[in-house]
């Protein structure tokens, strides 16, 4: 089981999941695959470990889920709620603030 993302990435899975779900509704496997491919395999969830995150976000009413059949397969589809969209905006601005700060510092040290 792959679970190698460093601890300073706390909160990043939430941001990534909310960002992906802001584009379209998805099920667990799709989310894991999208994170892996869209981050160039730099970040990955352990297979199966996405579900407690999704359940947490659902308990926080940031996402909602619906079990339905698509192409002969039953799956739980997750989609972003209004609260989730608001949370995504907060996390995105926080992320931009942090990355800008870190980039400035790294630039100074390397420059």
């Amino acid at each position, binding site marked *: *089981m*792959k*679970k190698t993302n460093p601890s300073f990435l706390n909160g990043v899975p939430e941001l990534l999941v909310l960002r992906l779900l802001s584009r379209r509704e998805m*099920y*667990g*496997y799709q989310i*894991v695959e999208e994170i892996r491919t869209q981050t160039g395999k730099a970040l990955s969830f*352990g*297979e*199966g*470990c996405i*579900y*407690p*995150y999704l*359940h*947490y976000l659902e*308990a926080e009413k940031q996402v909602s889920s619906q079990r339905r059949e698509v192409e002969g*397969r*039953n*799956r*739980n589809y997750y989609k972003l709620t209004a609260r989730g969209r608001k949370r995504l905006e907060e996390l995105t601005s926080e992320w931009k603030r942090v990355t800008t700060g870190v980039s400035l510092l790294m630039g100074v040290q390397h420059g």
Partner: protein
Amino acid sequence: MARTDFIEQLRRRLLELGCPMVQVRRLVQEVADHHEDLKQAALSEGLSEADAEARANVQLGDPLALAEHLMAALRRSSWWGRHFLIGFCVLPLLAVPVLWALLLFLGLSLEFALGYSWDWKKLHVAADNPVAFHHLAMAVHGADYVAIGLATLLFCWLARRSAVSVTWMATACAICSLYALFGQAIIKPHSFAVGVSWTPHWIEAAIPLLIAGAIYVFHRRTKQRFQEQVAV
């Protein structure tokens, strides 16, 4: 390992770790769906059925370790799971007196709402009447018993819901029991006090332990029934 064995091992381990039944059903269903998706992806790459299943198993990893990860993530996802020391050791000490005061307040508010307005003067008059005083004392002590029972139920429910181990549920119940053993409300005609008594109150102290025991037995039986249903 076949897919059914993988899923069965995951289910058993989640139950052993004290995962709530609702969560077990849901997590197992979603991991089974995930396993099927991984298998389909492998099949689409031209692997045989057996190889595709084996690769899906490898990708998902050891089912026992996966169950541990799922439980850890589940615990981290709630405040009670993250702060179990405060939640199940400190808060029970505060919960019992707060609930007791709340119940008394509700009782008095109900009397007020029903038109039996009360004030200190009336309470002093009641204190001089043996029958009325007996009722008043019953209300105070009754609220004490109910508060202890409610607090125990509340912490047992929170422990189950946040998927913390049975140890934390037992700790919260033991603390409620200790509080009940030595904490007391003394009501005498024209005086009232709340404090600690070194004379133990065994009946009140037994309430949390009985409730915890009943809940533990109930959950064990439900878990057994669930495993039997799955086996069938």
